[in-house]
């Protein structure tokens, strides 16, 4: 007899929403404790993130990064592989984008976008392949190896930027700017086509649509293809997968390739869409935020999309808060950490009382 069964809709909506609410409640107490007004802070954050197309633009730009890295973690987790190397894979994805954009002259941004996406995916996948192979063949734990590969990726990128890609004579460890012909169209240009006015400032660009397409692609892959079936069976039960003749080695490697490719594709948004050159800290921790996004999104591509928007809001709203109040930048990181803590680590704290409530309601009804 199992207790603690809750309806699916409550599991995917009520639990995360309550977790977020709890995190916000504690954040409010913190803000109040340092002598600021929580209600004022909420107002600033919401207005800053959603109150204008400028705010929306930044929120969606950040969210696009998190969609890619969140999907990367979610896909790997479907096979119960904890890929926390999204950071490094995204860095390598950036290198892939830069090489594609710098060394090959593209006639049009659309072809460059396809090529850069492939380059990013290829480099990200290659970076995830090594830990995947080591896990599958040697049993080296993927958490350890992927996190170590983050450091190697950072060093490798540093070397590439300083010694290979740097503009001669420049002190700045960054690649030259990409040709302006292949600059990706921004969201205001796309929306302009259908007559919707949108702020021209934020860097949100067509990579957002690529991210949304990837959500659908990942969903289709997981639930409508044989590969997805094998990945999920392997993740749910390795003995049963072995019984079914699903190769653990091949599945692990495939999953890590897909995961790394998704993480790498984040660079299309940040490197090609925003910076238009490769810089040292192109990823800015989005690889790690991806873990929280996947956790909160229940490792489902559509959940990842929604969670990415929430974290985009936290990023943008938090930046506004730091700008307009004396709430220090660090506290915003604390708020983000609280959301991660409650939606990820303390998930059961919310789930258990809810399941008890449902049990009670059922008995009464």
């Amino acid at each position: 007899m199992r207790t603690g069964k809750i309806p699916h809709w409550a599991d995917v909506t009520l639990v995360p929403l309550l977790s977020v609410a709890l995190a916000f409640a504690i954040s409010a107490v913190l803000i109040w404790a340092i002598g600021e007004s929580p209600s004022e802070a909420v107002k600033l954050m919401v207005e800053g993130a959603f109150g204008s197309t400028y705010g929306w633009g930044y929120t969606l730009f950040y969210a696009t990064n998190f969609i890619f890295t969140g999907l990367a973690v979610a896909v790997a987790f479907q096979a119960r592989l904890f890929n926390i190397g999204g950071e490094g894979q995204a860095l390598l994805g950036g290198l892939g984008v830069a090489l594609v954009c710098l060394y090959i002259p593209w006639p049009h941004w659309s072809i460059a976008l396809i090529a850069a996406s492939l380059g990013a995916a290829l480099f990200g996948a290659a970076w995830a392949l090594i830990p995947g192979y080591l896990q599958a063949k040697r049993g080296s734990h993927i958490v350890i190896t992927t996190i170590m590969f983050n450091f190697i990726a950072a060093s490798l990128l540093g070397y590439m930027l300083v010694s290979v890609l740097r503009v001669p004579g420049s002190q700045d460890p960054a690649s030259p700017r990409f040709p302006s012909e292949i600059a990706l169209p921004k969201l205001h240009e796309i929306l302009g086509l259908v007559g919707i006015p949108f702020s021209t400032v934020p860097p949100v660009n067509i990579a957002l649509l690529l991210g949304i397409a990837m959500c659908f692609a990942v969903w289709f892959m997981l639930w409508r293809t044989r590969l997805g079936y094998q990945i999920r069976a392997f993740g749910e039960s390795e003995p049963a997968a072995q019984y079914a003749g699903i190769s653990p080695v091949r599945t692990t490697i495939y999953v890590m390739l897909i995961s790394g490719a998704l993480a790498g594709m984040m660079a299309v948004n940040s490197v090609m869409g925003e910076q238009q050159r490769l810089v040292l800290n192109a990823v800015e921790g989005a690889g790690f935020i991806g873990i929280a996004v996947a956790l909160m999104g229940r490792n489902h591509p559509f959940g990842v999309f929604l969670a990415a928007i929430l974290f985009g809001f936290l990023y943008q709203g938090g930046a506004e808060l730091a700008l307009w109040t004396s709430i220090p930048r660090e506290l915003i990181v604390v708020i983000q950490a609280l959301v991660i803590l409650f939606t990820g680590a303390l998930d059961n704290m919310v789930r258990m009382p809810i399941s008890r409530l449902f049990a009670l309601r059922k008995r009464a009804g």
Partner: protein
Amino acid sequence: MALNTPAMRQETAASDNAIELSGISKAFGSVQANKDISIRVRRGTIHGIVGENGAGKSTLMSILFGFYRADSGEIFINGKPTEITDSESAIRAGIGMVFQHFKLVENFTVLENVILGAEAGGLLRPSLARARGLLKDLAREFELNVDPDAKIEDLSVGHQQRVEILKALYREADILILDEPTGVLTPSEADHLFRILKGLKEQGKTIILITHKLREIMDVTDDVSVMRRGEMVATRVTAQTSPTELAELMVGRKVLLRVEKTPAQPGAEVLRVENLRHVDSQGVERLRGISLGIRKGEILGIAGVSGNGQSELLEVLAGLRHAEGQVVLDNEALPLSGAGCDGQARRARRIAHVPEDRQRRGLVMNFHAWENIALGYHHDPLYNPSRWRMDNPAIIRDTEGKMSAFDVRPPDPQLKASGFSGGNQQKLVLAREIEYEPDLLLVGQPTRGVDIGAIEFIHQRLIRLRDAGAAILLISVELDEIMALSDRIIVMFDGRIMGERMPDETNAQELGLMMAGMA
């Protein structure tokens, strides 16, 4: 007046009933696991409780041992109304429980396990000394001998069970509950256990025996209660009932206890195994030169106490373990390691496999029924209209057909495997493997944890597959099942074949000796 009632009941009941449950109900969500259950267990008797899986036996006992609180109802111990809020209060009330899956610390000694949680004071030495003395007495009195300084992991299953009983007795239990105690024992170990239980009964202890084996009920109990679908349907004095009546009460209809089958019509040899050897990941040699053959249209049963290499044999043949030796199927060798030795390759050679552990291997518990029907057959062209895409609606349609052919209840392809009862989970696996129409079916423990009604059905299906010309290799720890289904019986002990018998020329005693390595 109302206040007097319990006291009055106490006077009348104290003399003869060790336990009285009155109106116990317990629901888990929408499932009513126990419905208004009342039962009296006379002091100094062995009281059997039988019922199919999911009938509510374990829930009732968990309530009695304080794991669950009843939604309503009263418990009287020795006539006294007793609140049992947790296992500690159950132990204080004199109740001891021996679980189906032992709760022992593997790398502790017997003595350490016995005193665990019942240490008197901060120093271990006095408790250990007291336990040692007590163990010696108990060993003498009840044949409960176990080496007090042996580590649990070095003990046989039968001995581990004795440690569980000793733990309860050390805590001065007067009422002992045993949940399916013989599932893991050889016939002779089971006999020994029953001698222990009878000895305890003579000392005035009360014993509740939960089992689904009617023969044990008839052999050792004084009274027997039958549960069905959460209700207590009858209590009988064992001497005045029969296995047939009990089976009918359990299932709610007439049941065939014997398997109806015609003699086998064996054809050509399908599978030839020569000198098969297997060393497991711990470096233990599990198969030490197995040779056997199976012909078309026959069921070869492999008897043995679990852990003597039968499981490994099954998994080697199913391609899940590597081995050395020779296996020939239809005049073509089966690879025993490397490429071509996996579940997929075996299915391509028309070998189907019903694994021993359906919840771990045979099913993905978190998958829908239809996803499980595709497990292992996910490359089937019927399910794959193109190279990449899986045709989920086609699988669902196919699942509906298989579920109705095998009477899986509820016939809902969208239900997760974990939502089915044990019997229906097994039917799901059998539907998948039998409908593949294999040349060779490997079956492990086809009816473990399956209720009587479903057992009958599963046995019939296996016979039908045999009659259609398939070869079947059957592995089961239930000797009755081996004897009832097999056309030939091989007994395994310690990775070797002890001998081969025809079912109508042998008996449980002879097979039991062979299973213990003594013949």
